[in-house]
């Protein structure tokens, strides 16, 4: 669809909707290829269906804006795409509307929503749309026999070169422990002791001097492309898009991937609650979630969507199923991000991580 037809479509939709009291909602997400996938799979069909308009805004994560808006009583964001830990903690702090899950439709195959969504996808104040994961990747044009396990990531003798990691304890501590021999399923048991944290930090110590720390999701593909790092942790969708859209020679290593969900939340006190809820119901339906997966390699949060996931939007040969975090070949040694653990221990682990980092 060209921009022009889109504009015409939106314009006529607004005109028509003017008669049936259309709402205008502000939907906030992470920008880049990810927002594009949402615009294509959710926003456009929803606008066409309801006649409402969507103003799409970007943000860089965190709940600071939501907190400011809610506490000042001037809520201008109607829907925000957030990470699981943020969704839970913002809900705990009373910043979000609670969502009654009974409004969600059953899956396309008839499974009720409560069973169709994967574990942890339905929260008191949030409904998940995608599964994404933190993986590590390398440039295969520069490394013929590349790394295959998370232990290789920490082995600078065997694979020399700098490493890129997100400047946050999350995912890094987990990966470090698995690299140190902890089974993926035991990671959080080990991390909940002080000695376990020491162990993870000691493992990170072995590559600390060689590490470049990134903060925004767009940075790691850039670091790899510039040759700044030999391998880096990254969000799988970002690496996939660098490969699929820009033809970069990057390879993803799925061993010890840490997977997580992104969810829709509604800031408390929005004036467009009904439209926002309607958008959630629409966008997290089986078909929409599957449609989004043809734009970016994040897995749908509904099990029933998997059957409908096809190929990349402009390349029918690129089957998306193989590139999802949840694909059987990728999922073997996956770590499920434990949001309850992080809600309880996030403050303390951030302190310890930052103290470790600054030394």
């Amino acid at each position, binding site marked *: 669809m060209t921009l022009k037809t889109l504009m015409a479509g939106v314009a006529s939709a607004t005109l028509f909707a003017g008669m049936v009291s259309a709402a205008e909602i502000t939907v906030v997400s992470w920008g880049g290829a990810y927002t594009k996938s949402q615009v294509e799979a959710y926003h456009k069909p929803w606008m066409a269906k309801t006649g409402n308009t969507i103003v799409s805004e970007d943000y860089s994560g965190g709940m600071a804006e939501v907190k400011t808006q809610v506490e000042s009583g001037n809520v201008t964001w109607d829907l925000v795409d957030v990470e699981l830990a943020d969704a839970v903690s913002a809900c*705990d702090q009373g910043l979000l509307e609670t969502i009654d899950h009974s409004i969600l439709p059953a899956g396309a195959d008839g499974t009720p929503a409560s069973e169709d969504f994967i574990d942890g996808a339905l929260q008191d104040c949030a409904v998940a749309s995608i599964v994404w994961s933190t993986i590590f990747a390398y440039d295969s044009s520069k490394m013929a026999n590349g790394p295959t396990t998370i232990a290789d990531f920490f082995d600078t003798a065997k694979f020399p070169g700098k490493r890129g990691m997100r*400047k946050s304890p999350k995912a890094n501590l987990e990966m470090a422990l698995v690299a140190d021999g902890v089974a993926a399923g035991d990671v959080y048991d080990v991390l909940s002791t002080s000695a376990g944290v020491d162990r993870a930090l000691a493992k990170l110590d072995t590559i600390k001097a060689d590490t470049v720390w990134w903060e925004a999701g767009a940075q790691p593909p850039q670091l790899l492309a510039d040759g700044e790092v030999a391998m880096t942790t990254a969000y799988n969708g970002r690496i996939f898009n660098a490969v699929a859209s820009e033809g970069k020679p990057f390879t993803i290593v799925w061993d010890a991937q840490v997977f997580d969900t992104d969810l829709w939340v509604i800031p408390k006190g929005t004036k467009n609650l009904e439209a926002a809820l309607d958008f959630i119901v629409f966008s997290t339906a089986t078909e929409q979630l599957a449609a989004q997966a043809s734009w970016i390699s994040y897995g749908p949060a509904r099990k029933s969507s998997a059957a409908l996931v096809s190929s990349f939007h402009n390349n029918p040969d690129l089957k998306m199923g193989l590139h999802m975090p949840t694909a059987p070949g990728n999922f073997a040694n996956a770590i499920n991000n434990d949001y309850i653990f992080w809600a*309880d221990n996030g403050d303390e682990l951030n302190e310890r991580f930052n103290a470790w980092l*600054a030394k």
Partner: protein
Amino acid sequence: MSNISKKLLAADGTPLRKKLAQALFQSKLRAFGLVSPLLAFIIVSFIIPIITLLWQGVYDDDYATAMPNISEVVDAWDGYDAVSEGMYEALVKDVIIAMSMDRALTTKAGVRVNREISGAISMHKKLMRSIGKLKISYEGKEQKAKSIFRLLAKEDTERNFILSQNQRAEIGKKLTKEAIEKYAPFEQFVLKSDKKWSNIEIWRAMKVASVKFSPAYLAASLDYNYTFDGKFEKRDENRQIHILLFFRTLEISFIVTVACLLLGYPIAYLLAGLPVKSSNLLLILVLLPFWTSLLVRTTAWIAMLQGQGVMNDLFVVFGFATDDDRFSLIYNKTGTLIAMTHILLPFMILPLYSVMKTIPPSYVRAAKSMGATNWTSFWRIYFPQSVPGIGAGALLVFILAIGYYITPALVGGQDGQMISNFIDFHMRKSLNWNLAAALGLVLLIFVLFLFWLYDRIVGIDNMKLG
């Protein structure tokens, strides 16, 4: 004297002194009227927000508001006696009332306690779940507390609660009364929801959290714990971070100021000595970076300094480094220093230039004509006259540098972070605005102290911006 003034009268017969005072008052009023829009603007958009935010650094009533009963009980408790049934009961009572009013009240209280001891959030949530399963009668029907809370939270079409806050609180109290009659004692009930409630530390943490005016956040921003018995205890070494960062912030700001002075002084000197036409052209070059976005400039430095960047390529070409062993010029303290010096340089050059412009060249010529060498005439005659510009430039750069955070965030890596990056972290990521405010307060007090020190040593009047 007084006799004379009494005799001086204005044309309309009032004493001249009174008339003069009136006139002065009027002109003052006019002047005040002229600045009052700006004053009002500053008060509304700057002073009030700053005070409200900093206030949060010493005041936090999240816990005391949500949990009034248990707050009172732990306040009276000495922190050593065994946890009593009365404390368990007060806790359950508060959670029931809070949940009747608003679900988030209890979780908010849990978040507050979690800042003192990890794990409190899920303990509070588990307790909420257990309480939700208790059967209590409401509107003539015995049902799960969970369903009652849901009924109480019903909203009308205008999105207001159907029941007022007081009504919900009253119902909450009634529910509590029944729950106590039916289910007390509560010790086993609470421990069954999570056995960690038997840990005395959690109750001590609640005691700390229940204090509204509390030095807890200020203590945390200086790497101390404020304990339940009112003492300050140094944090575990592996959690100490803020003092280190305050010192690093100082160190980086100081080095950047000195570097700006060393680089800026000769440029300003050159500019001041050139004819107006060429100096204006050069001045535009100094100002050019001002018209470029801060982000663009910082990103440009990344392209220049990174491992595969321009500088390192040059070093390799000229043999200062080998291809495998390039310099780490960015994502560390060096990167922060270089980028910040570049960005802050104009703030040093401009005050220096405008002060140097006013130094008459004839003084230096006079000194030379009396036999002073170039160096003596510069050092004894020119330099002292440029000191006010140095003072202004250095203070400007230093104070700007202390609050810098975008550049260190982008190029600072692990050891180039400054305290403002942590204020930013607590504002945006951890949502611990109280700690962010406390850190900001400490930083503000510190800057004011430096200002005072500067005034003492150099003198604030001895500073000129032109």
